[in-house]
């Protein structure tokens, strides 16, 4: 396999993000670049202390002996190699493997640790056009709430955090994951969403049903 880490096209554009890299930043950037051009690529990722992780982009699938929930957030010595799949070449591993979406959700949420992914630009606003399959992703209720917000309009990560009452770092993580999953509409020139203040009478309704049921169910 050819070592693509020296390839100029896969270098992060923002020096800031490189400083934030926990080992996964570069890998996630490479994965995003490959997805962006829908290239028929194969990717092998080596993390110290783990079996190699293989991705076959032609089939949207990956295999890894490590349970994704154990994904080391701070991985030392992460290296990766990309290879172009030749036409008609057999799958890199026995299909179906696992859906690449599972990996994208976890990497998107963890790779940039509360900062905007380097392929996204400050000043952009995002709107959800399709929900991720929450049935297959470990998630927190705060993420569900942010998704519900994002389904209604364009938000910057900071605006999203305010709207959902979530820490801005979590808003960045979620936006990164959704972008990686190709579930966002992006706009640079849409105006901020203006929410009229709640009509009087609604104000002292107290906690929302969502908040109360959440507390009731202990979630």
């Amino acid at each position, binding site marked *: 396999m050819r070592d693509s880490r020296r390839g100029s096209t896969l270098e992060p554009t923002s020096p800031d993000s490189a400083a934030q890299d926990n080992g996964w930043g570069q890998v996630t950037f490479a994965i995003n670049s490959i997805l962006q051009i829908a290239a028929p690529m194969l990717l092998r990722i080596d993390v110290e202390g783990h079996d190699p992780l293989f991705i076959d982009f032609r089939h949207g699938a990956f295999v890894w002996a490590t349970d994704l929930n154990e994904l080391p957030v701070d991985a030392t010595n992460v290296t990766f190699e990309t290879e172009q799949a030749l036409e008609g070449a057999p799958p890199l591993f026995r299909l179906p493997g696992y859906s690449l979406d599972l990996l994208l959700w976890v990497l998107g949420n963890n790779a940039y640790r509360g900062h905007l992914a380097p392929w996204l630009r400050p000043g952009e606003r995002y709107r959800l056009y399709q*929900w991720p*399959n929450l049935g297959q992703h470990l998630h927190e209720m705060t993420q569900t709430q942010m998704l519900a917000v994002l389904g209604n309009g364009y938000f910057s990560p900071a605006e999203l955090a305010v709207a959902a009452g979530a820490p801005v770092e979590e808003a960045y993580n979620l936006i990164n994951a959704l972008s990686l999953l190709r579930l966002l509409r992006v706009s640079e020139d849409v105006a901020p969403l203006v929410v009229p203040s709640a009509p009087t009478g609604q104000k002292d309704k107290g906690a929302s049903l969502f908040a109360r049921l959440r507390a009731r169910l202990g979630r």
Partner: protein
Amino acid sequence: MGAGMTTAIKALSEIEVVSTEANNSERDVVDKPTTTVALDYGEIVLSNDEKIRMYGIPGQRRFDFMWAILKTRAEGMVLLVNNDAENPIAEMLAFVEDFRELCYKGGVVVGVSRSEIAPQPTTGEFARALAEVHPELTVPIFTLDPRSKDQMQMALLTLIVNLEMRETFGEAGVQQA
């Protein structure tokens, strides 16, 4: 039928679920003046004077008089689609058409059951089929095992937060676009 409706209500309810089962063979009985409707009822109690009432309503067209009642009364709906059925996407689309208004209020989430038996179609395929007809609708669609209390609670909370966020931001979002 078999999408897991009774199972779903049982997973969520804090009271003993009231269930009546329709007898399939009844359809062959010509002279019978009545039909049994499969119906489930359960509750989650929030406080002394507040509870969430949950009704399991069958999806077959012959019970659509129940849907009419649901449309005027229900705040929201978890639409359970059996992925192991003949054409689950067409089934979802038919319901969305019927419950259009509720969908636009954010009051519908789609739970795709039996997906471990029938992995296809994927939730992405459901979403794309829906987007072709209603590109401006963003409906939560996820795989769901009605036997899992955890997943059912997740589905219910998703439904409620989706309704509330639509109420808060829906109008402004339309203005913005």
